[in-house]
């Protein structure tokens, strides 16, 4: 069964290139079915798409579907292209990132095809009989649900970023590349303006420096930004901080914010409300800094520092800078 399995990985990319989560999808696909055929599907606005890194990360074939409308992601055009390719390739599984775009695209395509969708998965298993089971967090991570996918194929699965990181590129891998100019229906209105800054998104960051009310005011988030800059991290916040207007909502971690799984989460001046813990407790390593030794955040922390974050964070910035430059 496994030898015949075909998996499509939808490449997520933007003006800065292929998003790292794409390589995680390829890694997950290889782990799931190493002898199967893995096709990276790249919707490109022009011919100059660079496919070599996709092959190095595990693709057997890269299909580059070229159309001027693909100069930016819009779900309608991606939906049309993906439905076409699914019809041609007849894959068993289609993997997409659990990004805002991946979630809407997978939901729309699954509904059109009448097939199963599992969102934001953190584990995938394929049995010898070809059954696919997934594990995904529910209640923002307060519990995990394991499910079997049923109905006709393909199964659509979106994967949470940062979970399926592999060994990295293998530059000796070979694969095939197919470039094809495709036609799309005439969509009436695809006018779109995009404002994406240079800042790392918290769901994509390997390291997060996060602030709570213990930061005492918006001006003190500069301290967290300084530490984040040294570590190449993103800055996040708790809900009360966002509700006070100290930080934008897109930085909010928790059950009514975003769920993150970085390698390192440094919680500064955070009490650790149950909603917040749900959104970050699957981080690999958690550091908590809080002046209250009884704060709930210490219950999930691997390393705790009892003290005022406003005093300790600058010391950390200095120290990390020293050893990273050392």
């Amino acid at each position: 069964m496994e030898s015949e399995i075909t998996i499509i990985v939808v490449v997520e990319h933007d003006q800065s290139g292929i998003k790292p989560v794409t390589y995680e999808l390829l890694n997950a696909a290889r782990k799931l079915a190493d002898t199967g055929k893995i096709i990276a599907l790249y919707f490109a606005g022009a011919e100059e798409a660079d496919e070599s890194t996709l092959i190095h990360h595990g693709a057997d074939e890269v299909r580059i579907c070229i159309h001027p409308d693909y100069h930016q992601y819009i779900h309608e055009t991606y939906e049309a292209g993906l439905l076409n390719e699914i019809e041609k390739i007849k894959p068993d599984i289609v993997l997409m990132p659990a990004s805002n775009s991946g979630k809407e695209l997978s939901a729309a395509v699954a509904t059109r095809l009448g097939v199963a969708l599992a969102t934001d998965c953190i584990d995938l298993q394929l049995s010898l009989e070809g059954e696919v089971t997934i594990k995904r967090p529910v209640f923002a991570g307060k519990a995990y649900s394991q499910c079997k996918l049923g109905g006709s194929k393909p199964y659509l699965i979106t994967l949470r970023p940062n979970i399926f990181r592999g060994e990295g590129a293998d530059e000796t891998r070979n694969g095939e590349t197919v470039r094809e100019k495709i036609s799309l229906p005439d969509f009436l209105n695809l006018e779109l303006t995009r404002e994406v800054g240079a800042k790392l998104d918290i769901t994509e960051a390997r390291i997060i420096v996060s602030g709570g009310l213990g930061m005492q005011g918006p001006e003190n988030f500069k301290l967290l930004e300084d530490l984040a800059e040294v570590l190449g991290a993103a800055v996040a916040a708790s809900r009360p901080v966002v509700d006070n207007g100290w930080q934008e909502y897109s930085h909010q971690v928790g059950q009514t914010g975003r769920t993150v799984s970085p390698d390192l989460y440094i919680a500064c001046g955070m009490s650790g409300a149950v909603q917040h813990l749900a959104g970050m407790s699957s981080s690999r390593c958690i550091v908590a800094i809080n002046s209250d030794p009884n704060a709930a955040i210490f219950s999930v922390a691997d390393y705790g520092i009892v003290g005022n974050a406003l005093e300790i964070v600058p010391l950390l910035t200095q120290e990390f800078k020293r050893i990273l430059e050392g």
Partner: protein
Amino acid sequence: MKIVVCIKQVLDTAAEIQIQDDKIVSPGSPLIMNPYDEFAVEEAVCIKAALPESEVTVISLGPDSVKETLKRALAMGADRAIHISDPLFTGLDHSIVAKVLAKAIQKNSFDLVLCGRQAVDDDMAQTGPALAVLLDIPFVTVVTKIQFSENFETADITRQVEGGCETRKSMSLPFLVTCQKGLNEPRLPSLKGIMAAKKKEIQILSATDLELDAQFLDPKNNLLHPINLSLPPERKKGIILEGEDIAKQLATIIREEEKII
């Protein structure tokens, strides 16, 4: 404008949960309106304030307790509520729930459908886009701003993307949007609103009303079959760092033991 808002009743986000008989329970915790659906209700009520001939219908599928959530939406300013209620509607996955909702919405004419960007229990983010596909209307997800034209026929719609936002220009009604925090500030129902809600109708739609039979609603048709629920693995007990050079200690641990930097 005829506006339909889909809402879901969920467990309070402050709830600590347990697993009993393969179900998630939280004894004593209240049930609330899904927080993202509050943004949807608020947006509908704001549109009605700007365009008074509008009608706001809230719709929810679930057990009897759902009536309380519908009443809250009515108290916030919705005009009427539909409760999709039938023992046959239990145990259905998102793919079937979306079809049931679509059937209910299609019973009347509509211009705008609003949903939350996801429910905070299942975290699937599937029902909104699925519903749009079934209703055959365009959709935009994770929306933080809807700017209607003066005649309320088109709108510029801003959605959140990783690292920023993007705006779709001049989308023509009808369409569906899923609402994200930042879209508005949901009001607390006023006393006047609560009193007014008591006079508003909650219409009940059963499987028969929606011309759906037991065969269609058989959970065997689900595409996602739950096998097991578990609590997250316990994190190992942490270490409190003490002493003089705390910053140095931590930096060394992160580099040499955790090997993160």
